Each structure stands twice: as C-alpha cells, then as structure tokens.
C-alpha cells in the first residue's frame, strides 16, 4: 500500500522503526497534493521547501535518539486560522492577506514539539464563519466525493485534505460545528474536544467562549493520537482547563461499549432531515444496541432554540473580537492618502477586507449588543445557554453519551445556500448545543445516504471532560461498520 493510504499510527511506527524517513513520507504527500490540489483547493499555502526542511529536522532528531511521540514525522495539514511563524496566516480573509505572525499558536508549537510535519495551511470560511468553505476570500474547496459539492465548513480545507489523502491528519476549530460537520460530509472523523481542553492561544478569535481546536483523521485512533498530541493545559490561555487530558487513546483502543447507556436526542430528527441521513442514523443506533449498549430516548426540549441563541452569541462575540482589524497595526490598510482620518481609513479597509458573511455577523452582533436590544437578544440568549446546559446535565444523569445525526443533510451543492444565510445556518442544527454547553462531541462516518451516495456522520456527545467516551463509542461503531463494509467508508469514494 502506498504511503498516502496508510494511517497516521502506521506511518509513525514505520518512521520510528527506521523503515521509512519523515522526508519520504512528506514528499509522498506533497506529490499527492501537487496532483489533486487543482481539483480540491484544500490549501491556501504550501511551501515544499519549508515542509521538507521540517521533515529533515525530525529525521535528525530521531536519528540523534530523541524520544518523540507516536506521531513523529507524520505530516499534517494545519487550518489557516492558527498562527504559524514560518507560514502566512490569513483566516481566509483579504484583510490578512500575506500576514506572517511573529509567533506560533500553542497548537502549532505542540505539533512541532511532537515531531509532526506541517504540509501547509488549509482553506476555511473567512474567520471560520460558515458551513461550506464558500466564504473563503480565496475560492471554495471542493468535496473529494463530488467536486460540485461543499466539503463542509468552516474547516473544509482540513476535511477535504484528509478525505483526498493529501494528509493523514489535520487540525480544525469548532465554534458551532466547524469540525464535526465537515468531517460528516467528507466521510472522515472529526472531534470537538471539551471547551478549554485545547488551547486558543494564537488561534485567531471568532467567538472566544465557543472556539475549540480539535483533530481530523481518517480513523478514530488517529484522531485520538492527534488530540492527545496538542491538547492539555496552557498557561497562555486563561480559559484552558488545568486538568489531565482524558485518556482518549486508551479509549479508542478499547472500543468496548457493553453496558454503556446511550441516549437518542428526541428533538434531532423529522422535518428538514434528509431521509438517507435518518436511515443511516437509525441503523447506527441499532448497531450500538447490538454491541451491548443500552439505548434510551432522551428529551432536551430547548435544543430547538440553540440555533437562534448561537446566532446571537457568536456574532456578538465576533463583532467585538474583529474590532482588532483596524488597519493600524497589521493587515490591510486602504485609502490612506493623507487626506482621510484614521476612522475613515478604518471603515474603508474593513469594507474592502471583510467578505459578506463577516460583515453580516459583525452588524448582527453590534445590533444584539446595542442598548435597547441587549436584554431581548444577547441577554436572553445567554439565559437560553444556561437552560441548554441544564438539559444536557439532566440527560447525562440518565445516560453516558448522547447520539444524533451530525448534520441534517449530506454535502449540498456549491452555490445552493451561498446567498441564503438562514438555510446555511441549519447545517449546524445538531452540533451547536455542544458548543453552548462546552461538552465534548465527535463525528464518525456511519454510511452513505441512499438518495445521493454521499457520507453521513454519527455524532456522539459526552459531558465536559468526557472526551474519552466519544472515542470509545466512536471506535466501537467504526470497528463494527468497517467489518460490515469490508474496509473504510472512504475506500468507497470515487478516485480523483
């Protein structure tokens, strides 16, 4: 089997055993990227030399007897919202075109410390605002399953890169579903860790109380290995949890769910859900039962208001966070001809540098926070957030994990929802509650929808710091389904 089709765990073992070098593995992936990028457009920045240089350094460290983790020498695609000192960091926005941060994000420096080799920076919806990667200022990314369709978003470059075998692993960030939904629609694994379980330092902020870095991989164990490599307490992020990382790798290896109590959220399903998505979901629930889990129905009536609450909270935080793009200290500056005031230059720059979705959200957030509307909108949304967290808490008294479809439909065609914000927002219907409550949640492939032959994801949600439960259940589902299918779901994808 070629190097690009191996798992991250296999590649790490081959490199550690001296059977292949990190440089050879990096070059195999760079060659694959050169071949398929014209079709996929997953990357915003690739620099072969910098990547090979990193791989050479890892080979030298291993050669000198340095003990690195299980992913040493394994290549990774890095979402272009994490600061990287040696590569541009743009958040897919014109306002940061060509910007090179003076420092690395914590996630970036932990990847480097673990010996991972960064292949490049991946495409996203501008500032991670979107569910399709169409909001990138640098053109959309295409879904490897069907090039006319979206790869999900906002981390769509990261999901597409892994699904197209351009990288065995990638990073993402999940604010309302931006890891789980892209994983679901490209047939791979994507995990949103517990909020505060992974560091936000050096992550360009969208909605600070929700933003959570997490891993993408083609299988559950690889995702767990990456999760462990970059997670854990960071003194540079004051909202980082000062507790050990849940034992996610061990859970992914055990994959035993006998006796576990699993709750099906009653409110997720019905109108607006694609029949093929619901069919695969119900089969997955039966499978969980056949593997020894006890399945019960759980009601969380306020989850239906999670979406409206999110679209008040996230834009409010974004309107404040994006005020830093003021054309003064870094990034784009437009209209500074000596006659205009700083304020005029600021307004012209922001109008030229931000795309339509970012402008919409900044204005929506400004509205929700303005006096006279604050109590009815932002204040009420924060109360709804409390109600939703309480419903989760009550549910987790009855069950160990909750399950739902990850997203109501399979990948939709590029352009279909591009100018209909409300239709676009529905893609995050099932993922948003876990962001509001901060709990852990994963998406694992559970089959193809009958209507269109496109991937469907199963979402598994667990309480705060219960990340290991997501991996345990995810690995059990993966094992059972892959033995039924005779291989991974991704092996059914058409050749590129």
């Amino acid at each position, binding site marked *: 089997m070629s190097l690009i089709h191996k798992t991250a765990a296999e590649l790490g073992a081959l490199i550690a055993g001296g059977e292949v070098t990190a440089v050879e593995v990096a070059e195999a992936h760079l060659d694959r990227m050169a071949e398929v990028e014209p079709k996929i457009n997953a990357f915003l920045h690739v620099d072969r030399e910098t990547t090979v240089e990193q791989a050479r350094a890892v080979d030298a460290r291993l050669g000198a007897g340095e003990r690195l983790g299980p992913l040493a020498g394994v290549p990774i695609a890095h979402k272009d919202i994490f600061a990287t000192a040696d590569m541009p960091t743009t958040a897919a926005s014109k306002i940061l075109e060509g910007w090179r941060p003076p420092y690395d994000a914590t996630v970036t420096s932990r990847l480097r410390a673990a010996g991972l080799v960064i292949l490049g920076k991946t495409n996203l919806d501008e500032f991670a605002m979107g569910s399709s990667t169409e909001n990138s200022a640098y053109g959309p990314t295409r879904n490897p399953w069907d090039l006319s369709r979206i790869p999900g978003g906002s981390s769509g470059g990261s999901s597409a890169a892994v699904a197209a075998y351009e990288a065995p692993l990638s990073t993402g960030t999940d604010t309302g579903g931006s890891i789980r939904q892209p994983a679901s629609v490209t047939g791979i694994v994507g995990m949103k860790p517990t909020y505060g379980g992974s560091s936000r330092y050096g992550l360009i902020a969208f909605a600070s*109380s929700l933003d959570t870095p997490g891993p993408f991989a083609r299988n559950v164990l690889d995702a767990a290995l990456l999760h462990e490599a970059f997670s854990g307490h960071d003194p540079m992020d004051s909202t980082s949890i000062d507790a050990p990382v849940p034992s996610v790798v061990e859970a992914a290896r055990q994959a035993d769910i006998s006796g576990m109590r699993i709750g099906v959220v009653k409110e997720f399903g019905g109108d607006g859900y694609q029949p093929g998505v619901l069919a695969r979901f119900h089969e997955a629930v039966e499978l969980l039962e056949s593997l020894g889990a006890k399945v019960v129905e759980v009601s969380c009536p306020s989850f239906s*208001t999670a979406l409206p609450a999110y*679209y008040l909270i996230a834009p409010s935080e974004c309107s404040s966070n994006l005020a830093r793009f003021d054309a003064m200290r870094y990034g784009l500056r437009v209209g500074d001809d000596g006659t205009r005031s700083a304020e005029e230059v600021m307004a012209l720059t922001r109008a030229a540098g931000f795309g339509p979705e970012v402008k*919409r959200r900044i*204005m929506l957030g400004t509205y929700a926070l303005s006096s006279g509307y604050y109590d009815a909108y932002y204040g009420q949304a924060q109360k709804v957030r409390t109600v939703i967290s309480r419903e989760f808490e009550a549910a987790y008294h009855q069950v160990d994990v909750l399950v739902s479809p990850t997203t109501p439909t399979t990948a939709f065609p590029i352009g279909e929802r591009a100018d209909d914000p409300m239709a676009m927002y529905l893609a995050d219907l099932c993922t948003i509650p876990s962001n509001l409550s901060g709990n852990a949640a994963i998406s694992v492939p559970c089959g193809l929808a009958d209507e269109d032959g496109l991937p469907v994801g199963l979402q598994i949600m667990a309480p705060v710091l219960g990340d290991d439960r997501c991996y345990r259940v995810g690995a059990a589902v993966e094992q059972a389904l892959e033995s039924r299918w005779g291989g991974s779901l991704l092996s059914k994808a058409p050749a590129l």
Partner: protein
Amino acid sequence: MSAITRDEVAHLARLSRLALTDDELDHYATQLDAIIESVAKVAEVAAEDVPPSSHALPLTNVFRADEVRQSLTPEQALSGAPAVEDDRFRVPRILGEEA
C-alpha cells in the same frame, strides 16, 4: 412589519466601521431582517429566573506571577504594520482639522 429598517442598518454599519455602498445596505437590510426575525425565537424560552451564562465553564480569574518575561522585539511587533516610522506604528490623523 420589518424587524430592522435600512436606516438602522446604516447606523450599525457606521458603528461597525464598515463603509458600505447603497446596494450593500439594501441587501443587508433584507438579510438582517430575516435573521433577526428568526433569532428572536430565543424569547420563547421561559428564562426569567435563569442566570445568564457568558461561558461554558465555571472558571474564575486566572493569575500569574508578575515577572518580566521575554516578549516581542520592536521589529517583530512592527513586522506586519501597514506603515512604520521611527520604531512606531504610523497611522492616519486621528483628530479633525479644527483640533
């Protein structure tokens, strides 16, 4: 009745420091109206006695020792600046002509 008028959107654009064209204002007025009407559903949750959550985790302030540590050099801090003069950020005038 619309939830938000075009004039209100123009005001929001000014507050947000976004120099929008007339066409953009028309477009956003329609879209924001639909979005606001939809997010207003949060009012359906009876939550008078519920405390608001600004955050998912019950975190309190985090402190560190007040020690001098390495930070960015002036060159690093200015490395992305649109305009620089004498180790400083050069910005457009911030005061009006009459000042």
